[in-house]
């Protein structure tokens, strides 16, 4: 029962953060970003059901997001013309059902195999649907997409959803519900067997489970929640276009889930938050943000194969043993030069980019034509690199001593 109380506390904190955020940051821009995050969190979590929990690498997950979103926008239009009439708070559910429907159909033949075959089918389906969306203009609206207005439905306790902040609370509610249900799914036989099939499909068959059926269930659930995210997107932006079901969106959700950390439930949430912030803020400071995103992604795959969540979880043992503090100083000693190295590197990239003009980097005016600027950055980077390299063994040592396990079982049980 102690764990139950602990878990409830975490969920209550989550709800608190969701509800409290707009009180801390209440500008329109902040709300916009939070809304984006809300959509991204559900979408990335649904993707994790496939890849992280079920071991299915999909290059076409945006299909379910997009189809759900399109149907949601069309439903909004129907509400406007009173073909149907209900409160728009249920719109994400419409998106979810369409996502589910699409997943049931596509999953019926694509979940036969995991691995490369599944990845390739998802790629093919993704390309097919994206291409069709440009051909079938009457439903998808061509490249301009479909527009709607969310304010025509019956008011919900007097709220007519004129403002994005009202949508935020609706979105937050959906995020909370969707997150909760996706978490609970992992705790059911179907969710647990998805992990088992991911780890070892053959073994799963020999304990009575059809790997294909298990994958199919996860696939449908992922499609359902992706559709909910799509429905929320439709509510937030009141429009949707083909770009929301093409390969770029599919790729972005893969990035989110991976950078956040596959396999950890919280990973995709972290990834969704990081990528949304980068996408909407970093792009205002540098045109090269996509390049940095690419570098970050590749570095993550290389050095943090379990993403940011995995990095955080690495410290669990040290935390339990109360030795996290002993890591702080070594982290600083190595981290600071690493930071300087990164800054110098970015400065040089920006100098290359701003050829022939003066630009301000962290408040310092830099110019690519000025050799001394290059020299300064190079020297800085070199010193930082050396400092990093010199201190790395110490960090490793500190790490090992903090994680040294006298009796392993004891440590595990303490959690």
């Amino acid at each position, binding site marked *: 029962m102690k764990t139950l109380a602990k878990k409830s506390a975490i969920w209550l904190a989550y709800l608190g953060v969701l509800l409290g955020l707009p009180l801390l940051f209440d*500008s329109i821009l902040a709300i916009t970003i939070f809304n984006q995050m809300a959509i991204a969190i559900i979408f990335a979590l649904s993707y994790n059901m496939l890849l992280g929990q079920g071991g299915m690498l999909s290059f076409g997950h945006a299909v379910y997001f997009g189809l759900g979103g399109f149907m949601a926008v069309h439903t909004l239009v129907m509400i406007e013309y009173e073909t149907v009439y209900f409160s728009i708070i249920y719109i994400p559910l419409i998106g979810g059902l369409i996502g589910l429907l699409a997943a049931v159909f596509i999953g019926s033949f694509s979940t036969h195999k995991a691995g490369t075959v599944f990845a390739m089918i998802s790629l093919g389906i993704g390309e097919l649907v994206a*291409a069709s969306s440009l051909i079938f203009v009457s439903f998808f609206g061509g490249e301009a997409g479909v527009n709607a207005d969310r304010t025509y439905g019956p008011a919900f306790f007097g709220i007519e959803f004129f403002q994005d902040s009202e949508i935020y609370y609706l979105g937050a509610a959906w995020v909370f519900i969707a997150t909760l249900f996706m978490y609970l799914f992992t705790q059911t036989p179907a969710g647990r067997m998805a992990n088992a099939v991911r780890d070892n499909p053959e073994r799963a068959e020999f304990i009575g489970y059809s790997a294909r059926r298990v994958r199919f269930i996860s696939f449908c659930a992922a499609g359902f929640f992706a559709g909910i995210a799509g429905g929320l997107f439709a509510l937030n932006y009141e429009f949707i*276009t083909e770009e929301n079901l093409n390969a770029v969106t599919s790729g972005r959700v893969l990035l989110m889930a991976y950078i956040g950390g596959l396999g950890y439930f919280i990973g995709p949430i972290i990834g969704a938050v990081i990528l949304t912030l980068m996408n909407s803020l970093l792009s205002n400071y540098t045109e090269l943000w996509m390049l940095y995103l690419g570098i970050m992604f590749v570095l993550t795959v290389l050095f943090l194969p379990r993403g940011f969540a995995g990095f955080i979880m690495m410290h669990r043992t040290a935390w339990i043993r109360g030795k996290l503090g002993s890591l702080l100083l070594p982290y600083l000693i190595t981290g600071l030069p690493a930071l300087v190295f990164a800054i110098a590197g970015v400065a040089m990239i920006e100098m290359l980019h701003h050829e022939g003009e003066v630009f301000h980097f962290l408040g310092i005016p830099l110019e690519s034509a000025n050799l001394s600027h290059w020299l300064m950055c190079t020297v800085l980077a070199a010193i930082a690199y050396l400092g990093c390299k010199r201190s790395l063994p110490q960090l490793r040592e500190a790490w090992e001593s903090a994680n040294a396990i006298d009796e392993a079982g004891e440590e595990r049980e303490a959690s």
Partner: protein
Amino acid sequence: MMRLFSNTSLKLLLVSLLIQGSSLASAQEPIRIAFMDPLSGTFASVGNSGLKQLQYAAEELFNSRGGILGGRMIEIVPLDNKQSPTETQIQFRRAVSEDIRIIFQGNSSAVANTLNSTITRHNRRNPGQEILQINYSAVDPILTNEECSFWHFRFDAHAIMKLNVLTDYIAMNPDIKKMYIIGQDYSFGQVVADTSIELLREKRPDIEIVGNEFHPIGQVKDFTPYVTKIVSSGADAVITGNFGADMVSLARSIIDSGLEIPIYTFYAAYDGITATLGADGVDKIRLIHNDAGNPIPTQERLEYIQKFKRLNPDNDMTQHRITNALQMLVKAMEESQSTDPYDIALALEDMRFVNMSGEELWMRGEDHQIIQSLHISVHTDQNIVVDADNSGFGLLREYSVPAENTIMDHSCRMQRPRR
């Protein structure tokens, strides 16, 4: 990278999140105008070039001369919409958040349509906080027809107006008997195809349309198979609305096949295209556009362009309509002595303005469509004073239509807000 983020960006993030839309207009405060176009990604060069032209116009024509409305400066705020309708929504909210009331936007009709409906919704829900859309380049006809809005002004001729002039020009060429139409499979491509067919049938019923082909945007690796069809159809000329890499590839394939026929098009110059077509495209590529190219009509404009070129050696003055739009916008502010979008919009309606080339521009009040003369130019290296891509090649004017002959009917039923 993340380090950068946690440092500069975080600080800026906090600042920008905390900014409240409560700035009161004071005499010294700059007038902030958003420029919302792709500034990163595949289409960045077009967007950045436009941004430089707008910044140059603001600096050169107004700020360096003491500002407007009694000394206020114009500040151009670049907003990167990555040419994505979704990202446009986000950047629009950023503009609202920063209390920017005027948005310049030009690239992609899909984006313009999205912005148009977003602004319409926003302005209806937030009276007193309205936003004005200055469309300097998106040519989808519906923006000043079915979907016209009081808050949207277009400073470029729309696709059908351009095609009207283009088909007039084609009709004058008796050698053309067979026409092939090819375009990207999306709304603009379809408008080009449908309208061309309709107008040619009217003007030259003897011209046979020997092909009407659509291909997916940006998906075609090799245009040779399409060119094979063009050749076998025996076409004398090609009309296409392609842009970007699809335009270059198509033109290159046609030229490579040895086909000596004219290509009539919209977007086959600048931003690397002129340089890539180079000598191969001479006398083959013809563009319909506004704002006369070579020879530059007035000394004033020539100097204006040359100064821009000195400041931005790698960019061209590709879209003079950006300058036109800013000049007319400022004129509207001065006339109404206001920066409120509603007052500006009223002042812009039916404004007549003589631009740097000495052409008179008319912003038709009924649909907010600019009426100005249109030109057809040829890709060449003869008599080029202002070239493109520093390549020595550029556009030479062959045919001009005065503004009054470009006027077309519209189907706009504008809903005017009441104050």
